[in-house]
């Protein structure tokens, strides 16, 4: 999908020229994870990984990214594999799985409908056919639509590095706008979604001006599991209102142990609004975003906890 960031001008000393041509770069297609890692090491941060290309090419065209090399990983089999349910109920999603495949995957729709529902709000069918879930996470836009649902599902990510494979919580993966724990020498291999707690109900809300082709002004994912009328498990995650997708433990704490009545939900929504640290940009002011966080969190909780 197109980079969810405002384009910067490409000013030169004498003024501004609008470039149509991509700047020159070396194109390399990796066929295996070790090869991709070797190439990354060779270019030491001056290369970019290409999967669907729906963010990378836009960023290169607008001058936001000027890599020396583009390493195409589309054909690296170990990064694909689609959606698999492991023994024990954990779901593994290959990083190269397209957004369209996630949207339509029968297993995901049955086990964790939150994710395909969120993905269906992204960009357009054409872009979803091309863009990958790994790409959306690695691009690390604060407004990335796959992030809040995955965080609400306690997802983990599997990274390939030259030292081997390691797994980390997705919550630790995002380190800033456009920045992740991958650094310049690792490849995202898969997203792991633990078996959801029994009775988990989850909802995704996205606020934007348009119904499609829209970056979230605010997005919200909530997940709640109740036992005998009391909330035992709660997740409240916000998108587009902080440098990274943001889990709000304070809001979750206000829910757990409570029945989820209107006042509980209002309090949690207020906590979420307080936790949001939105910026003011062309998409909305900080105050407005905070206001919308309160509304969307409350509405999402009403749907799943009421």
């Amino acid at each position, binding site marked *: 999908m197109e980079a969810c960031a405002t384009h910067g001008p490409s000013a030169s000393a004498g003024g501004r020229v609008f470039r149509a041509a991509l700047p020159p770069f070396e194109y390399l297609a990796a066929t295996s994870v070790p090869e991709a890692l070797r190439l990354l090491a060779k270019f030491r941060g001056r290369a970019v990984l290409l999967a669907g290309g729906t963010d990378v090419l836009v960023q290169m065209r607008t001058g936001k990214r000027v890599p020396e090399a583009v390493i195409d990983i589309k054909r690296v089999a170990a990064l694909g594999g689609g959606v698999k349910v492991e023994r024990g109920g954990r779901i593994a999603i290959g990083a190269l799985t397209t957004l369209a495949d996630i949207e339509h995957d029968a297993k995901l729709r049955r086990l964790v409908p939150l994710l395909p529902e969120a993905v269906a709000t992204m960009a357009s069918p054409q872009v979803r056919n091309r863009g990958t879930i790994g790409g959306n996470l690695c691009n690390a836009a604060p407004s990335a639509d796959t992030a809040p649902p995955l965080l609400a599902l306690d997802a983990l990510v599997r990274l390939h590095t030259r030292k081997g494979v390691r797994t980390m919580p997705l919550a630790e993966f995002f380190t800033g706008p456009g920045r992740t724990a991958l650094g310049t020498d690792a490849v995202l291999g898969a997203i792991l979604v633990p078996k959801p707690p029994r009775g988990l109900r989850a909802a995704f809300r996205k606020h934007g001006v*348009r119904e499609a082709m829209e970056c979230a002004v605010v997005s919200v994912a909530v997940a709640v599991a109740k036992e005998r009328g009391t909330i035992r498990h709660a997740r409240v995650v916000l998108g587009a209102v902080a440098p990274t997708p943001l889990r709000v433990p304070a809001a979750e704490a206000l829910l757990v142990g409570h029945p989820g009545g209107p006042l509980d939900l209002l309090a949690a929504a207020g906590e979420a609004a307080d936790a949001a640290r939105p910026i003011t940009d062309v998409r909305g002011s900080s105050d407005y975003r905070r206001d919308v966080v309160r509304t969307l969190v409350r509405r999402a909780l009403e749907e799943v906890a009421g």
Partner: protein
Amino acid sequence: MSGHRIVGTKVPKLDAWDKATGAARYGHDVSLPGMLHGKILRSPHPHARIKRIDVRRAEALPGVHCVLTADRVRVGKLGFLGDHPVLKGDKVRCVRDEVAAVAATSEAAAEEACALIRVEYEPLPAVFDPLEAMQPEAPRIHENAPDNLVPHRYEFRHGDAERAIAGSAHVVQGTYRTQFMTHCCLEPCFALAAFDPAGRLTMTSSTQVPYLMQSHLSRALGIHGKDVRVLQPTIGGAFGSKLDTHPYEVLAALLARHSGRPVRILYTREEEFVCAPTRQPMIIRMATGCDREGRLTGRVCEAILDNGAYTSWGATTPHIMLVGISSLYKLEHVSFRATCVYTNNPWSGAFRGYGNPQGTFANEQQMDELARKAGIDPVEFRIRNANDPNSTTPQGFRVTTCALKECLDTAATRVGWREPKRPNEGVGIAGMFHVGGGGRVYKSDACGVIAKLDDFAHLTLLTGATEIGTGSDTAMAMLAAEELGLPLGNVSVINNDTDAAPWDVGIHASRTTFIAGNATLGAVREIRRKLLPWAAKELGCSEDAVELHDGSAWRRDDPARSAPIEKLVRTAHFREQGEMFVGQCFYDPPNQFQDPKMRGNVSATYSFAAHAVRVRVDPETGKVKILKFVAAHDIGKVINRLGLEGQIEGAIAQGIGYALTEQLRIDGGRVGNASFLDYKMLNAADLPEDVEIHFIESADPAGPYGAKGVSEAGLIPTAAAIGNAIRDATGVRLHRLPMSPESVLAAIRAGEQEALDSELEVTGPLTRSGT
């Protein structure tokens, strides 16, 4: 239906297949052998003096053929006031200003060369707010405009509006602000210029004014008009943006002249957002009064337009803005003043509706408020004040056909005006008045058509009337086919070459189906006159007894007797002293150029419409959802129902964007959302599912088969109708476009805004304290 076989049916546009299959050839698809790629270096500053330009490194770059700066070319200025240099030499006045241009063998080399040009600027204080620009201490943008006012004033007075308002039973006052909007043509700007060895220029262009462009290029380049030929490929959208000749087009010609090679300039999408003309933002202060019975008494309006740094047609939009303000309803007393102010913002041009959408946003919201104050239903209030057929308005517009009351009634009924509403739902309506029979904004409002019928009964229409996607070609072909009794497939339109086709003033003012349609009828009727004697002879009857349809001539009293038209043509052609079937017409409508007091019957007829919408407003996010949209248009006569529906639907979509989401975010003279990602043009998924379009056929005596112009009409009342619906749903009225979720929510949170309005005075100086 009055016995027409083709007119009034649903016909796909002539170019629909080509466009749908990708076969259409747009400007970007055209290239010439040896062609160079042109690129423009633009100012990084909104206002600065140019101290020095060093192009040596750019010229040394391999592949670069030509680098132009202001001191290297002799070129005239652009715009109807001639205030716009093609290349800026002494200073730059906005960030899109052209400082240098390069032609090179590749686009990449041209871009690289631009980046190698060194320019020393001395930044100057800049001004971006027209009200600030009017202050005495404001930075001066043009030397010859010390007050930053564009030397082109608009003032209209009819009766005594101030007194009429003072004596009114009810008065509504308000200040309305509209935004920068851009056309979003799917095809970004391009120009391809090539000189032949004799020095004759061929300009391939998506211009809306090919024949005026000949003059513009002739003046700018100092060559004779006969040495300028304009070709138009398929045009990927214009909406008014190509009504003027812009610097990039002249630069393509200059680069071609200096390099001796064809040169093509293509904008990138980002460049299109930053550098294409805009719809001019306005600050409109308006007051309207009515008497106890709800009859309008008078209206006072003052508008301030942000002209940007240079003058294009944007500065003339008050002409058309006023038509809706003065003439949508019966008004005895009107006072209007408009001032265009230079700023260091991007300059504005023509855009569908030409000032009327801005004016209608103000006056149709005021009608709503006034109805509330008078305690009269807003629909009834409008019908009570609606114009009648065969009346004359304060500006001297002779309204002949007028179905405004029927439009209002239809729109209100179909939207369920009186039906119960759920919480947060509201309904709103707005009417619209626009030119529908051309618009004499130049000395000529004419169009020429040459029609030729060949031996196989194929009819070719040669015309200067440009097709920019409105479906005017198809309408012309349908009119010709109907008149000559030919199948539509027998008609083609050639209208892309100033060397071949006769003159047309350009495509604007919703004029083409009306004007070129009448010219078409004139031309094919000449053929019909020539053909009928041959048919009569063949059928053994009088000319009066001949009917033409389905490709044949028929004896009215004996349907068994017919003769194919192609056979008649061949009979007339292949003989000694034969005859050819060519007709021509130069149609100039019976309308007038306005006098300096803004009076004169500018159009041969006028179009009316009403839009009614049902909305639901989310009271916690401010998001407006349109549940139902009804458009009722007095179009005179339907020519192509499918094309007409498309025109209205498209205009509604653009109008909803104008109302709710579209805005070029310009801060400090810089565009902050130069992409479709952040310029919120609406998509299919955003548009209401329930859209009804009703056509009311008032059968205009001046129109071709009774038709009036319609292309702009669907945009004009849309924002006001939505604003009125938001007011109905929330109790809050917005005075600023776009009515974005954030601004709707802020208004709801701030509560009633009307209290603010009453604090504003009608005749005092404009202040920034308005809503």
